[in-house]
């Protein structure tokens, strides 16, 4: 990548309830990072965090977007959704705590590990939310 270039940007749309397409953005980002020669361990952490964020939108929200920006030193991912929001973020961060519906649990999700997995796999994680409006998650991972 040319250091003079600003950055590479990717955008994806997510639809609430759409478990068929969940994971596609993460898969695309994984391919791009591989092509850029980023090491496997770093890629894994990034795509796991993004995948968990995607599934959160699909499982809980009405719709959302994923904005990815990759530059020389880091990747910044902003996942924004319109949805019920998170009333108590600290509680939601607790491993095992889940508000997933029965349908979502039947799909294999709702273990309550999504946000903890995101925290574990990112260098910076910022969550902002408003009840009955939506949630924005910003994740930054620095390349080695």
């Amino acid at each position: 990548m040319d250091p003079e270039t600003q950055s590479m940007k990717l955008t994806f749309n997510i639809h609430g309830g759409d478990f068929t397409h969940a994971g596609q953005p993460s898969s695309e980002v994984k391919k791009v990072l591989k092509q850029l020669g980023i090491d496997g361990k770093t890629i894994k952490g990034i795509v796991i965090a993004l995948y968990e964020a995607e599934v959160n939108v699909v499982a809980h929200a009405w719709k959302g977007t994923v904005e990815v920006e990759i530059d020389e030193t880091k990747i910044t991912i902003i996942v924004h959704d319109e949805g019920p929001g998170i009333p108590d973020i600290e509680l939601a961060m607790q491993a095992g705590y889940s508000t997933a519906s029965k349908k979502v649990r039947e799909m294999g999700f709702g273990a309550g590990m999504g946000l903890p997995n995101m925290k574990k796999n990112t260098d910076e994680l910022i969550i902002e939310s408003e009840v009955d409006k939506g949630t924005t998650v910003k994740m930054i991972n620095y390349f080695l």
Partner: protein
Amino acid sequence: MKLREIAAVLNATISCGAERIDDEVEMGYSSDLMSDVLTLDTDNLVLITGLVNLQAIRTAEMADIRAIVLVRNKKATDQMLELACENGMCILESPYSLFKSSGLLFQAGLKPIY
């Protein structure tokens, strides 16, 4: 343990990735909860699950898991097989329960992650 041996122990058929049948895995993880799978720090494992939907394959894709056993006589959907083959994964299908599959593999020397 080779995937070939795992298939034999579990009386499993290979529905995808037959070329990987001599690949080795050291450990196993049995779960129907995909977010728990995503907490694992290693990828040298076979995922044993009864979850038959595309997200089981996506989870394996994100976690770099290359071998999956579907238990309880479940069959992978066409969508699952397409994604699995695209990612070079090996999918085995066993008629045994999750409990039996886990027990047999543990006995045969497959190590737990924890």
